[in-house]
């Protein structure tokens, strides 16, 4: 037994199969250099159609008024803000994976971080559409920016949570984008260096900012990554906290709840990981990357899902308990009648939420199910359906029956243009994601190479070879 021969007894290899550095590059960069597959084309086509339908839906809403949606005097927010919170929530996993896991030195993150970060950026882009286009006068949207103006002392209202959203989300988007892009630089340079066509070389040359792989570049790259990770980490927590303030700081029973910040953050991670699962399971299959995105990844993420799902479940129960314990009749009504009562007009959404978010993830206590790809895929969709319900429950069931029974609303159901806007953001998301998968390496090539030495069949083979070598040879090999 050699001392050098080492394989962890507890940790599975992070990359399967015996890969050389070159092979990694080949595996991941190859799809960028070939004509897209039929599957890609179909998917992209559907995404673009959805996007165009969304654009038309928004066009109608902007030209004819918010009356194109079925909101009313009592329910001022419906699908619009529900979708906003839902997409923002999804946009949490990417940064969590890349930033927090980077700080915690979780090697497995490298397999999924690139795609997860891209997902974050696209999800935040989708999320941003809703608060912008839910405005009655979107052409005046720039009023929310605190720019110097000629209107005397007119300034934005810094005590409005909606304004905090503006800052929180734009900051989050900027930092996430920078983080994602700075991570892309070495890989873009690799694509550039492999490019055969002149225009590709030029394009990736520009995109990679002249990366040469010099030691100085790497040094700066690493420092920047750490700084951005440090910046992103509080943002992961703050964005959804601030989004939750939209509700928590209000006076509406069902919104006015101190539990919202942690509950929203847990929910966001929950839905974000579910979305990462959905995408990764598709990507590894379509791009043939099973060796890089392994069952280990899926299992680890399922563990996060069952944890955050349970946190969310505890939060739901705490809300119910507080509604009873406070003896506030208005809150009691919101929770016990409008929500928990399955026979009330929106009771179905509450129980849909409970079933999808709290009960169903519990199956991940079983290892077998955690490692089952079909189950995981199905569950990842269910979780996001449930999280959509959660936002709908919070927004609509609180609003439609608040303080004055005289103003209680009639039934709210969306119009085709309201649904169209939502579908349109799916279009936007997938259009971006397809383009990303076509033009950028979906896995961080450079980062995968970092961990390659420590895992995989190759490493074991190398160790075996090494034992056969003499000292001189060993020096030559190991010196570099």
């Amino acid at each position, binding site marked *: 037994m050699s001392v050098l021969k080492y394989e962890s007894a507890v940790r599975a290899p992070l990359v399967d199969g015996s890969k050389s550095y070159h092979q990694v590059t080949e595996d991941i960069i190859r799809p960028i250099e070939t004509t897209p597959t039929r599957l890609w084309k179909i998917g992209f086509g559907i995404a673009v159609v959805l996007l165009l339908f969304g654009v038309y839906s928004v066009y109608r809403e902007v030209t*004819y*008024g*918010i*009356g*194109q949606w*079925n*909101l*009313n*005097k009592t*329910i*001022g*927010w419906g699908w619009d803000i529900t979708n906003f919170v839902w997409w923002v929530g999804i946009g949490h996993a990417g940064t969590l994976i890349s930033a927090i896991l980077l700080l915690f030195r979780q090697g497995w993150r490298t397999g999924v971080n690139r795609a997860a970060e891209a997902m974050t950026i696209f999800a935040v882009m989708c999320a941003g559409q809703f*608060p912008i286009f*839910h*405005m*009655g*006068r*979107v052409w005046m949207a720039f*009023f*929310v920016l605190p720019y110097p103006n000629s209107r005397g002392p007119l*300034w*934005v*209202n810094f*005590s*409005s*949570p*909606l304004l905090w959203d*503006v800052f929180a989300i734009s900051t989050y988007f900027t930092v996430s984008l920078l983080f994602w892009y700075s991570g892309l630089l070495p890989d873009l340079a690799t694509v550039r260096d492999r490019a055969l066509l002149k225009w590709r070389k030029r394009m990736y040359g520009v995109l990679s900012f002249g990366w*040469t*792989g*010099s030691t*100085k570049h790497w040094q700066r790259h690493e420092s920047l990554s750490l700084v951005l990770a440090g910046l992103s980490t509080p943002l992961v927590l703050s964005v959804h906290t601030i989004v939750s303030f939209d509700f928590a700081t*209000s*006076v*509406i029973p069902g919104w*006015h709840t101190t539990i919202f910040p942690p509950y929203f953050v847990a929910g966001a991670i929950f839905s974000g990981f579910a979305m990462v699962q959905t995408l990764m399971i598709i990507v590894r299959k379509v791009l043939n990357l099973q060796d890089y995105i392994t069952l280990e990844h899926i299992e680890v993420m399922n563990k996060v899902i069952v944890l955050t799902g349970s946190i969310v479940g505890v939060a739901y129960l705490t809300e119910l308990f507080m509604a009873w314990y*406070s*003896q506030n*009749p*208005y809150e009691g*009504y919101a929770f*016990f*009648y409008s929500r928990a009562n399955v*026979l*009330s*007009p929106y009771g179905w959404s509450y129980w849909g939420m409970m079933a999808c978010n709290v009960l169903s993830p519990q199956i991940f206590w079983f290892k077998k199910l955690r490692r089952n790809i079909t189950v995981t895929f199905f569950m990842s969709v269910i979780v996001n359906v449930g999280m959509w319900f959660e936002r709908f429950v919070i927004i609509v069931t609180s*609003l439609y029956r*608040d*303080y*004055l*029974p*005289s*103003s*209680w*609303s*009639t*039934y709210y159901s969306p119009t085709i243009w309201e649904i169209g806007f939502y579908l349109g953001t799916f279009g936007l998301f997938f259009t971006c994601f397809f383009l990303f998968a076509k033009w950028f390496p979906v896995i961080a090539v450079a980062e995968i190479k970092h961990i390659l030495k420590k895992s995989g069949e190759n490493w074991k083979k190398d160790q075996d070879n090494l034992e056969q070598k003499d000292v*001189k040879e060993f020096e*030559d090999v190991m010196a*570099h």
Partner: protein
Amino acid sequence: MSKSTIWQSFGQRNQSEAFEELGQDEFRDINPGEESGEEGLLDSKTPRRDFLKYLGFSTVAASLAASCEIPVNRSIPYVNKPASITPGIPNYFATTYTQDGDVLSVIAKVRDGRPIKIEGNDMSPITGGGTSARAQASVLDMYDTARLRFPARIVEGRAEEIPTFDAFDKAVGDAMTGLGTAPVVILTSTITSPTTKKLVGEFLSKYPGSRHVTYDAVSHSGMILANEASFGNKALPSYHFDNAKAIVSLGADFLGTWLSPVEFASQYAKGRKIDENKIGLSKHFQFESILSMTGANADERFVHKPSETGKVALALYNAVIGAAVTGVSDKVKDGIVKAAKALKEAGGAALVISSSNDTNVQLVVNAINNAVGAYGKTINWGVTSNYRQGIDSEMLTLVAEMKAGRVGALLIAGANPVYDHPAADQFKEALAKVKLTVSFNTKLDETTELCKFVLPDHHYLESWGDAEPKSGYQSFIQPTIHPLFKTRQWQDSLLKWSGSDKDYAIYLKEYWMEQVGGQDNWDAALRVGLRYPGEVPMSAGNFNAGSLGTATAALSVAPKAGEWEVALYQKVAIGNGSQASNPWLQEMPDPISKATWDNYAMISAAAAKELFEIDITKTGDTDSYDVNPAKPMVKITVGGKELELPILIIPGTDKRTIGIALGYGRSEKAGIALKEAGKNVFPLATILNGATHFAAFDAKVEPLSTTYKLALNQVYNYYTDSLGVRRTEVVKETSLANFMQNKEQFKHERDHLVEEYAKRSGDYRNEGSLYDPRLNDRPGIHWGMSIDLNSCNGCGACVVACNAENNIPVVGKTEVLRGHEMHWLRIDRYYVNKPGGDPDDLSDVVFMPMMCQHCDSAPCENVCPVAATNHSSEGLNQMTYNRCIGTRYCANNCPYKVRRFNWADYTGADSFGNNQEGIISDVTMNMNDDLVRMVLNPDVTVRSRGVIEKCSFCVQRLQEGKLNAKKQSRPIIDGEVKTACQSACPTHAIVFGNANDKESMITKSREHNPLRMYYALEQIHVLPNVNYMAKIRNTDELEVVAEGPGEAEHG
């Protein structure tokens, strides 16, 4: 031993020059600007200044290119300014609203030559300045696009213009001469004008055998005939509800629609206001078949079928004279015994009225009033009322004569029998037999359409005229604008056709100059718009019980009744339908049902359970019934006439009675607002002994499986929710007995808040907040409003006044259905039942006017990202429409849900131009017609699409008042400025003013009523500036007082 090259990049491997260079500089820090070598910064390819230039140019170019063109409206100044008009300064003219005999002395506000608002005339001894919804809305009728614009011949239902009045006069004159001896009949609704009556007399004398027939769609002929029998006076007396301690109404909706509702509401409110130091309330009993607005205000209510009206009257008579009470159900019997006791105990301060058109019932009512000593105390024969003069049988005679071809010419003014006569078919048939038919109606209504000529009358705001609502009380009409169209007052036509060369204005002036004595007096009378005698002594009249015997005998035999009965009623807004084309009235929710734009079958909760298995005590059922605007329909069959209508469950309706409103289902030709607005139920009325009874005693009712969407402004009806929690922080009401037993109950709930949240200082306002209490120091003016729920009867005059004052858009049925109505002020209506009791057994119905509460710690203000809504130093919660970007966050966070969002371009004020065809309703499109837009108040911004709006406390009026005070260097006087809702209110339920002024009405109102004063949702500490006075109903019912005060958490 290997000497392999180790390389990181191709450059390194090939030892290229470029790579070497890079390698050299790898660890060198380059200072900014250094790369340009020896050259200065400005010599570089794009120096910074150039960059700034490019940036500036491209930004300006982009913004210029992108800027939207906003439609330009040009206004042209006067070349010669009329002496009486100063642009921007309104003129006020005293005039009189008259419609179908209704008379209200009003003041028309005229801005830049256009009347834009109707206010009550405070000097009127009859109304005390109160108005009705219909009077408030009447200004819009003038700008109705459906008005006929020229004299015309009617050909196949269309109006073909006759170019001049002379040509018209000649055409009619020729036709008249061709009649020979056939008589001319003038058919009008009640005329209260003394000069018009004189004129009609003079005209008729020129045409021998001619006569004048007064026809009221909803008449009081039963009463008039009964009074003829009892008092020898074919008239109506004056009523004094303010003198009555006990009021019994047998089906009369005297606060909403009966005879002179504004007058009665103002009198009635005097007996309902509470002085906490000396509590005395009048006691009001209502016996009716459906829940009327008046019934909703009654202390005790009892229901019976329409066919039992006679028996109830008889039973009450028997109870009053001490005879046995029989023939009525046990519940009603209890009520009658109680009512009779109250009437007798009142010592003459008692009043019984009935809406029945049955002379026999009215004879019995007269006998009761006589027995309880009401005549001379609450009923005055010294002054008679002229509001309704029509006798139903006269109309029937006319129809018979017309049919027989004995009428040569029919001149119709202000009457529409083809629509609103129960036997309209016969009238139509008869009309065709009349050689010459001329209509003076203003629109191509159902009757006009079938006439041969039409000469449209002026709107009253364009007319000269007078009215005498009660004998000796005159009110004058003067024009406020030059006639908009080629129309002529019908009195002018009569003058012309009777050969006079005077026009009516001269005729009127001459008449009144003689009466008042000279030009100066006439000018003075016109200025105030009124003329009335001094104190008129009460007269009891000479009661003669002669016909009572036959009446009681007739009533003891009940009419033949079937399983179901139908009660036809008038809605407060729509009435008999003559003003139904007014979109403000159509969109004003009915006080009871809260429905707009339709009529429907009102059924009781019990009937709903029986017919549709909807149990409104079960929350699941109420939810599915309430939240769904599609209501189930019923088929109602009366005497072979079938009608399909949606139902609305109105608790407190008689179980076997269906209530349907009159005034709907009119011809679309008379106005776009009439399109698909309900069904006409006048044909269901019963003609019995020559009188029209607005009921059908034998109806068949079948549930259908179809549904119909009803646009309701309020879908949930109780402030007690399904968990049995009373939202006492919203509505506070109790019985008088309860209140007397525990006077502190409401105050205690407020004190509890102080104990919980302001233990240290006892100042809930300041200590209950996290913010610095000094922020709440508000010196100067602090506007506040106080609303007395005991006085508010729900009539909705304030709602329409608010619409008119604040340019509130009409959104139409399709938008109300979607919860998009824009009303800034609404009247919430809550039913009160005993816990677990029968839903039809109502303890109370509460009307709660709800508008922006102008919270001093407003939840809407701090959530607006752009500070478009903020607080003024005077306590106003202000909206800056220009700044609003329409996030609707404020509306969500408003606990009172009073903020309204412009879901579409309802007012044509949008920068996108006119693209709303098919998006907004036809009615709203029509409201944006240039003609209709003339009614807009120029002092109030017309809001564009995508912004929030809400009650501003009529800030334009406050500003005007403050400026006037400032110009005169004085502080603003209490009562100098009034909000539109306040000045419209006939019962003075709304008090408004400066709460910082210790002497103001608002301060006194709050300080003098500490036991009833409360703020809605005070516990969430939003610090509203509108307070309410809890409602106390005069019943001796004792309820179990809820354990402890409100348990609600602090917000």
